[in-house]
């Protein structure tokens, strides 16, 4: 069994009348010659790293390489905790978790790349916040991470996942699409809804450039992770409501690749364009490099 596109992944799931995560798991078993239990336990290790990063980020000030970020998740937590009416809003948790993991990443801490480190806050934020809200166990979280992985895998077959080659759409865009699909599965949607959520999330992140200030994975990356995570949740909600993407997922992936190719290199992780060359960014860059 194998899948090279979201269409193939969906048709396998529908044919076997099972979830996307189950197909992803079966193919991984064949490819890696590992047992179901071994794959699940390996994903469990990833889940633990994600949880640790969230905990660390929401409870501590993080020393990042450039010092441009580090207390955003702390601020979110104190906002949530001091406003009872905000506690129940899942978007607040998603934002806060995404910031937490991204800050840990910026501080050379341990995270799970998903699909890249720059976008590592998105999938854990969506999946962990939803699992808490819906009171789901680790077994279900692991399934949703498999779904996220399978969707990202399809993208990697046809497109790049590097900001330096495809811009931020290839990192935060793809992570958001992976998270949207995972969210649908956690929320009990069908495989078709999973693929639609993936499409809706990715489509609306197309064209996103990678223009980090001073070349650091800090600005705009950390807050963009929070935005992309909330975006994923919105896409999953639309898909669960039965809203479909007019453009099929596999065509969106090709469009993303073409846009990435057309982007000039100054907007692909070289810090030579966009936000990176704004007056404020240039001043910050100078200050950071003077310190070093």
């Amino acid at each position, binding site marked *: 069994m194998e899948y090279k596109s979201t269409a193939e992944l969906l048709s396998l799931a529908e044919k076997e009348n099972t979830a996307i995560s189950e197909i992803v798991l079966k193919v991984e078993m064949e490819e890696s010659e590992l047992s179901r239990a071994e794959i699940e336990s390996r994903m469990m290790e990833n889940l633990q790293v994600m949880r640790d990063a969230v905990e660390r980020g929401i409870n501590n000030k993080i020393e*990042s390489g450039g010092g441009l970020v580090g207390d955003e998740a702390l601020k979110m937590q104190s906002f949530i905790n001091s406003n009872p009416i905000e506690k129940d809003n899942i978007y607040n948790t998603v934002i806060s978790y995404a910031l937490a993991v991204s800050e840990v990443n910026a501080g050379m801490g341990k995270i799970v790349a998903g699909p890249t*480190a*720059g976008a*590592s806050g998105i999938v854990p934020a969506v999946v962990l916040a939803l699992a808490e809200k819906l009171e789901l166990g680790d077994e279900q979280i692991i399934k949703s991470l498999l779904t996220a*992985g399978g969707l990202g895998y399809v993208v990697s077959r046809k497109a790049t996942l590097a*900001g330096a080659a495809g811009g931020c759409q290839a990192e935060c865009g793809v992570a958001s699409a992976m998270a949207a699909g995972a969210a649908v599965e956690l929320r009990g949607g069908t495989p078709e809804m999973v693929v639609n959520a993936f499409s809706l999330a990715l489509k609306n992140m197309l064209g996103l450039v990678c223009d980090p200030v001073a070349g650091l994975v800090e600005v705009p990356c950390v807050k963009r992770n929070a935005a992309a995570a909330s975006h994923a949740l919105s896409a999953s909600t639309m898909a669960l409501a039965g809203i479909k993407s007019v453009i099929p997922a596999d065509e969106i992936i090709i469009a993303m690749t073409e846009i990435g190719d057309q982007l000039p290199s100054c907007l692909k*992780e070289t810090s030579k364009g966009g936000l990176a060359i704004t007056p404020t960014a240039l001043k910050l860059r100078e200050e950071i490099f003077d310190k070093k």
Partner: protein
Amino acid sequence: MSIFEIMGPPMIGPSSSHTAGAARLGRMARLLFAEKIDRAVVKLHGSFADTATGHGTDKAVIGGLLGFLPDDERLKNSFVLAEKENMEYSIEEVKLREVHPNTVLIELYNQAETKELKMIGSSVGGGRIEVTEINGSSVKLTGRMPTLWILHKDRPGEVAIITSILGDHQINIAFMQVYRNRKGDIGSCIIELDQKPGPEVIESLSRSKDIFQVRYLPAL
């Protein structure tokens, strides 16, 4: 490709391409060199050069040269640790032709400077790497599978001897590349395997008369 390369790996931030990939490239160079590294010259190209300090690319390559994996918390302090290990290093910028934007040229020397390794490799996204040149020969080495790098006499039947030794040990070849610089000179083959070769496999290969070097590179 495994989905654990997409939903993973666990790693030290901040960038899968510029930190984890860089650490893997360093580690691959260390495995290829297979001797105590006395001096390392790290030349960064493209985006690697432009944003090295911010992404910890320099620290990650040095950490990889010290043998650290991408999820090793020691990567952050690799400069200090390199001094402790008496590994001299320098970080430079270079402009290479027709390579991926995230590329590094690593030169390694032993103490007597009698042995050197020159490796060019790129970080191609999500922490995955591709070594494209070893000591002037074009190769394609990803480190995703257990790999053998074998130097042998370039003569008819030599590759068949190698593959039959692997077959005798029930080792399946996933991908294989054969190179040489000049006819009749030293041939070089890179064999990616489905199974890890045990020490007995390496020994059988090494015993073969026209095989000069057998280097096992575990999956990164």
